[in-house]
């Protein structure tokens, strides 16, 4: 980018550019080929990253002629690259290797099987939890009830006998396991419940506004199934 830039031999020659282009095409094809070769497993990620860095270097060095520039340009650019890679790696390590918990999940289900059975409504008398603040309630209830309370369902839907589930925005779900079976011809209770959570605006009960948010991104697979199990069990 200096003023004498245009007067000197600039970067590589055209045959060299073509050679670099050919290498880039071959490496990209190799990557796609490897993707469909299902044999090398974990090693593939490493190979892919190495090939990708190779392409990165070729484009920067030759197409962007950084190889032929003053080292200062390289320092400027590589500072950004190194910082970006470091931040990305730190971020990935933080969120994949350590269980720092999900701030959105009030009560993660226990990883090991609990020595006691999942409490049912009958096992938790209303008066035993009536003095517990609703935030604490989430920690008390586990299983489907815990998810129902913890994910905020209880804010809009009421279930008779479930502490804190007194919302009036959406339909009462006390007997949803029975009701769901009759709602849509050809659809069983489970299918109806799943669909109603996955696509809240598909089946809106008369008299209610289509305001339920899509909460799918807040469940993991186990939680989703547990919640559906619980709702289906409400007869």
């Amino acid at each position, binding site marked *: 980018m200096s003023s004498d830039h245009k007067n000197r031999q600039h970067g590589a020659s055209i045959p060299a550019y073509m050679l670099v282009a050919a290498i880039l095409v071959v490496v*990209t094809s190799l990557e796609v080929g490897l993707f469909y070769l299902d044999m090398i497993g974990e090693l593939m990620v490493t190979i892919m990253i190495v090939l990708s860095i190779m392409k*990165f270097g070729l484009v920067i060095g030759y197409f962007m002629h950084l190889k032929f520039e003053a080292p200062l340009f390289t320092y400027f650019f*590589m500072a950004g690259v190194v910082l970006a890679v470091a931040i990305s790696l730190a*971020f990935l390590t933080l969120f994949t290797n350590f269980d720092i918990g999900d701030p959105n999940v009030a009560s993660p289900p226990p990883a090991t099987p609990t020595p006691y059975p999942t409490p049912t409504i009958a096992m938790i008398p209303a008066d035993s939890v009536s003095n517990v603040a609703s935030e604490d309630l989430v920690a008390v209830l586990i299983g489907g009830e815990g998810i129902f309370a913890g994910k905020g369902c209880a804010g809009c839907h009421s279930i008779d006998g479930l502490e804190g589930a007194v919302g009036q925005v959406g339909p009462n779900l006390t007997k949803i396991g029975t009701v769901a079976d009759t709602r849509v011809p050809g659809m069983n209770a489970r299918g109806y419940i*799943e669909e109603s959570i*996955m696509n809240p605006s598909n089946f809106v009960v008369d008299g209610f506004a289509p305001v339920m948010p899509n909460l799918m991104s807040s469940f993991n697979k186990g939680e989703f199934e547990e919640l559906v199990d619980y709702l289906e069990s409400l007869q």
Partner: protein
Amino acid sequence: MWTFLGSECLFFGSLIATHMVNRNEAGFIHGLSPACLLDIPITSISTFVLLMSSVAMVLAVSAAYRFDVKQQRLWLLMTALLGIIFLCFQAYEFQTFVNEGLTIGTNLFGSTFFTLTGFHGAHVTLGVVWILIILILSYVKPDATSNPLNTDIAGLYWHFVDIVWIVIFTVVYLIGSYGLDCGHVR
């Protein structure tokens, strides 16, 4: 320019890392996961198109330094056209995803994917506009564009957008959907 590109690395690095962390969040729900949606063959073609546009850009810059205006215009036009073809592939991909039910608000895979590739697409769009401006100015105000550095710097930007895609294609598409099943709830 190189300092700006260094800062752009941070920008895309953060978006890619955020995508990698969140891509599997609820992605398995009704098939809206990377493994179900990402179309490797189609994206391989669009990756190839973008790569070829970088080659065209190199030829344009080379012609600019030789003051070969005809060649320079030809390859600038080729670069812009290939860039537009790439954008068409992306528009098609976005359209397909939305038809399948994945939008930016559906799940974290959708949010991070559309944010990342959307910002990349915006960079490509800006590059196409930049290149077309140089191309048009070479007719309208030849004196102002005779300095090869104008084309060269646009080229740096264009190649940078290409290397960002090299990383996105490898990390998000190939590694991102490798070995994952397209699992459905039912």
